[in-house]
């Protein structure tokens, strides 16, 4: 029911005075209904230039083959698969926020799920482009699909994790897209009903004729809940299967049973870091401080420190098992992450992923926006190096010392990587201009129970006890969108 009061001990999920249902709509749709500002244009032009660079570098690869990259016969996978796993990992937070947190009834997901899901979809697009371009003959990209063919039919090998991966990534992408779009329907209808002319026509088509009747909402809720239920194991399965691409091989450094949980934790870790990177900027630029509050930022930082520490434990167990196995090759692979020629990559990996996030144990740091943003970037860098270390460091010194080699990226490798970031940001910036970046229908649900003004009313009515109020007011100290002066008189 919308009328019950939430405990005063919980921090508010919507801050600000005089927030009404109308105000939520106005605030969220502001970027969609108005001309973009200069900050958006600068961001968009830079991102679009990156996307053009990506287009050029990928076309160059298609034309010349993957000889354009810095690969050699020892290091057969490098920045391509590093980039692929990095992007897929980033793509994990969106569905985690929208599905897992829905099942756990974490209401704070309501304000951030939409942009996180959009981010998921764009990140998986970037990952998929890496997979296609690393094939060498991308026009045969349909070969991993079990299609009837003129060779027999010769079917694909279903024992291969690479085939599992094709199914996992494509299912993940399409189910995430459906989940995202179903959630968008009511919000697109809001834009439709406020727009005029051509804009109304376009959003009318996109809204599928949504009208918000009792039955539609009832079905909508059932569908959301079940999609969340099936998407939750799906998220876990995707990175599990990505990790099996490595774990089922016999390369020291890859052949590790801890890989599935370790990769899943790493994916959530990097995904939340990317959500943090994007949302801290978005909330400022779009003026959404009242909806994406310090509570959201702090909660995400807590997840980052938790998953970062899980990743840390996984690293430790890898080292332990390498030592305990007594296998010299295995031990060498792990020790040479610090002593070999790529020692700096190893230090980046362990430093950025395990050591730096530990700063989030301090509340002062968790609630500091500038530091949180910097740390989220550091985590993104660290997670890229993690994949680089796993892939390249395990390959470049293989079983035969005479074939040991180093990997040097060419300009094409670098351009595709920078370009894929450009593609990602181009899509994200377009998204915040044409679709609501906050799920309005879901945020409206929070207004009467979890907003600052509802809690303020409770305090004014004197229904709650004093210590609890003091605790609550103290917890608002770190909010940049709350004025402490308002509470002095109460």
């Amino acid at each position: 029911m919308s009328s019950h009061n939430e405990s005063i001990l919980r921090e508010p999920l919507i801050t600000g005075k005089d927030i009404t249902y109308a105000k939520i709509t106005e605030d969220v749709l502001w970027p969609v209904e108005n001309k973009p500002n200069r900050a958006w244009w600068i961001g968009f032009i830079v991102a679009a230039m990156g996307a053009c660079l990506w287009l050029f570098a990928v076309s160059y690869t298609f034309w010349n083959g993957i000889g354009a990259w810095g690969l050699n016969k020892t290091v057969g996978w490098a920045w391509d698969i590093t980039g692929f796993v990095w992007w897929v990992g980033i793509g994990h937070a969106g569905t985690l926020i929208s599905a897992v947190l829905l099942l756990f009834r974490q209401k704070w997901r309501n304000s951030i799920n939409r942009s996180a899901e959009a981010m998921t979809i764009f990140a998986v697009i970037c990952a998929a482009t890496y997979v296609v371009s690393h094939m060498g003959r991308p026009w045969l990209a349909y070969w991993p699909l079990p299609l009837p063919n003129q060779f027999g039919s010769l079917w694909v090998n279903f024992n291969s994790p690479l085939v599992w991966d094709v199914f996992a990534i494509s299912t993940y992408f399409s189910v995430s897209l459906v989940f995202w779009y179903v959630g968008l329907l009511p919000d697109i209808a809001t834009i439709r009903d406020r727009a005029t002319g051509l804009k109304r026509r376009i959003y009318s088509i996109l809204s599928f004729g949504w009208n918000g009747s009792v039955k539609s909402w009832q079905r909508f809720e059932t569908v959301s809940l079940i999609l969340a239920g099936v998407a939750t194991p799906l998220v876990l399965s995707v990175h599990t299967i990505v990790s099996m691409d490595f774990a089922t091989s016999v390369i020291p450094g890859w052949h590790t049973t801890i890989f599935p949980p370790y990769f899943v934790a790493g994916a959530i870790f990097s995904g939340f870091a990317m959500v943090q990177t994007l949302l801290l900027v978005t909330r400022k630029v779009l003026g959404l401080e009242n909806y994406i509050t310090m509570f959201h930022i702090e909660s995400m930082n807590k997840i980052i420190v938790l998953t970062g520490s899980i990743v840390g434990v996984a690293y430790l167990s890898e080292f332990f098992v390498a030592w305990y196995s007594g296998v010299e090759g295995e031990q060498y692979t792990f020790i040479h992450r610090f002593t070999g020629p790529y020692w700096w990559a190893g230090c980046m990996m362990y430093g950025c992923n395990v050591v730096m996030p530990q700063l989030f144990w301090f509340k002062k740091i968790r609630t500091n926006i500038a530091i949180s943003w910097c740390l989220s970037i550091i985590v993104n860098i660290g997670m890229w190096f993690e994949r680089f270390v796993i892939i390249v460091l395990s390959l470049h010194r293989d079983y035969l010392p005479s074939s040991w080699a180093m990997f040097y990226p060419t300009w094409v490798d670098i351009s595709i990587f920078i370009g894929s970031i450009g593609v990602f940001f181009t899509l994200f910036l377009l998204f915040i201009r044409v679709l609501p970046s906050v799920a309005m229908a879901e945020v409206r649900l929070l207004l009467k129970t979890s907003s600052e003004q509802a809690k303020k009313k409770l305090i004014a009515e004197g229904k709650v006890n004093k210590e609890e109020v003091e605790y609550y007011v103290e917890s608002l100290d770190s909010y940049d969108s709350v004025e402490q002066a308002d509470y002095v008189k109460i």
Partner: protein
Amino acid sequence: MSDIKYILGLFEDPDEMLHGIDKLQENNIGIYDVYTPMPIHGIENKLGVKRSRLDIVAFICGITGTFTGFGMIYYMMAVDWPMNIGGKPNFAIPDFIPITFELTVLFCAFGMVSAFFFRTHLFPGRAPRVMELRASADRFVIAIDAKKGFDSQKIDELLKEAGAIEIKHNDRKYVSYE
């Protein structure tokens, strides 16, 4: 007055709207439908809307995916062209699990969402059957069919009493999007 087809009560607050539904029902006035900008629990029960059976659809679609996936892999790996891959068994159930699982999820999600769109008549380009434009933003709307012969004055009074901030007497059912 005979031109009026629907009477709409616009509320600013969901709880007042729920109160309005009770008021109308106490006076035996049938409600056509309720339009809200967010899901509100409790209306379905008041209006006697039956529970959604989409969960059953989801289960059936999911189990179809399970059997399709497993059956396909079994046929291809063990029946149609059993290949000798390092002398390993052709019918390797553990290896079939990941794709069977993915197809379960895929069928379940797409089957259920298609059923949802089909039953709710949602598809791209469908003309929206909307009675009040603000019902998707900040108004909670109770719609009453005026042709059912209820006393419209009484309806107005009851809605006002429950806290409706605006009452509309519409002579056409839906808003025109032209």
